[in-house]
């Protein structure tokens, strides 16, 4: 019996072709691949549980639907965690919350996430080859502005949400409260140390 179907192969083909196309446009991709040259990483979305195996080489990335050897690293994650993978600092949080399971070296996972998400693509330059400098510049400028607006709104929304949770609903302590609490803990620590000192002196 075969674990893969031609449909799985079609999916692999799409993802592989898209990824490699993006990498061709990304000037930093080759360096990132070099760091992972010869590594095989298995990735399975918990929701689908059909693994994809990424074979990293200096030339490109190959994606297999099946690999009978031992992958250098195997990752299982929730679909939503894919978005958070962009931020390397989130990795440990994701693992703690159980959204991401790693079987292997976490450094490999970090490098792999960077390989997939951090693309240094000069879109304006590539576009200008197709539509000319002026149009390319205007297009990229407007898209960048839109992106800025979107990020601004997103940050605003997050800030509002945080404020609602801490100030209005009082579900979690606000930063000042946490700081005050930490100060109180430090005070108690100091008092304990002073007591210990006195105790030793008395003993002697």
């Amino acid at each position, binding site marked *: 019996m075969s674990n893969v179907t*031609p449909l799985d192969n079609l999916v692999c083909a799409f993802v592989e072709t898209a990824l490699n196309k993006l990498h061709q446009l990304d000037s930093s991709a080759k360096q990132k691949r070099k760091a992972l040259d010869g590594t095989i990483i298995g990735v399975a979305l918990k929701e689908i549980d059909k693994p994809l195996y990424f074979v990293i080489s200096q030339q490109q990335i190959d994606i297999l639907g099946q690999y009978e050897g031992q992958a250098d690293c195997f990752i299982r994650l929730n679909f939503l965690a894919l978005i958070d993978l962009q931020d390397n600092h989130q990795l440990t949080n994701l693992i703690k919350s159980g959204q991401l399971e790693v079987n292997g070296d976490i450094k490999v996972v970090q490098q792999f996430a960077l390989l997939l998400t951090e693309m240094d693509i000069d879109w304006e330059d590539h576009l200008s080859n197709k539509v000319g400098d002026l149009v390319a510049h205007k297009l990229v400028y407007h898209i960048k502005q839109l992106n800025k607006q979107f990020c601004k709104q997103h940050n605003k929304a997050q800030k509002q949400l945080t404020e609602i949770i801490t100030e209005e609903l009082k579900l979690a302590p606000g930063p000042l409260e946490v700081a005050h609490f930490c100060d109180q803990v430090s005070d108690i620590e100091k008092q304990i140390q002073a007591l210990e000192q006195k105790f030793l002196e008395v003993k002697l």
Partner: protein
Amino acid sequence: MSEIQENTTHFGFKTVEEDKKVELVAEVFHSVAAKYDVMNDVLSLGIHRIWKRFTIDCSGIRKGQKALDLAGGTGDLTAKFSRIVGKTGQVVLADINDSMLKVGRSKLRDLGLEGNIEYVQANAEELPFPDNYFDLVTIAFGLRNVTDKDKALASIYRVLKPGGRLLVLEFSKPIYKPVSKFYDFYSFNILPKLGKLIANDSESYQYLAESIRMHPNQETLKEMMNDVGFEGTEFFNLSAGIVALHRGYKY
């Protein structure tokens, strides 16, 4: 007066002397080599890439292994194997036709692949490799052209390591009648015309269509593999049986 000539075989729908077949096949592939990849994409609408991916997924190929891409031609499978087996592995691209081998070598070099690939001109019936040498042997769209298929299968069995496997990817018999009808029409009416248009060679593509029909069907090929010693042999029908992947193990 001989009624039936001894030592004849089929070349498409024609009957030819056995020793002549090799030359005739050679002519076909010298002729198609330059446009081979383009024609594959056009004639199969790119689907041959999926068939090949399926083959690689079923191959069990791993880092550090030794693979033989027999009748590998322009090196589609070799390229992927090379990247998967890595620096510690080895891939041999073998083909009986040196025009195809030249195209393959040039293509693989352009892709930046070099270190672990060896190029060998060889006849599948008499493989120039030691016994028990390869972890994997693949022959994609090549067995059809071999004069003595049983000899080739036996030769492959010899060079495989115990625990190794053979994958035969080849045109086969469609499993549904309507597909058969459309396929016949496509093969005999459209294929040679496309061949003429793109590669300026309709005869080679006529041979393609005919040789497919002369090739053993799924069950027969499975029996042939078992006869030379392969075990656990099974086949997978792809594209409704237009193509089949046979897989057998040497234990």
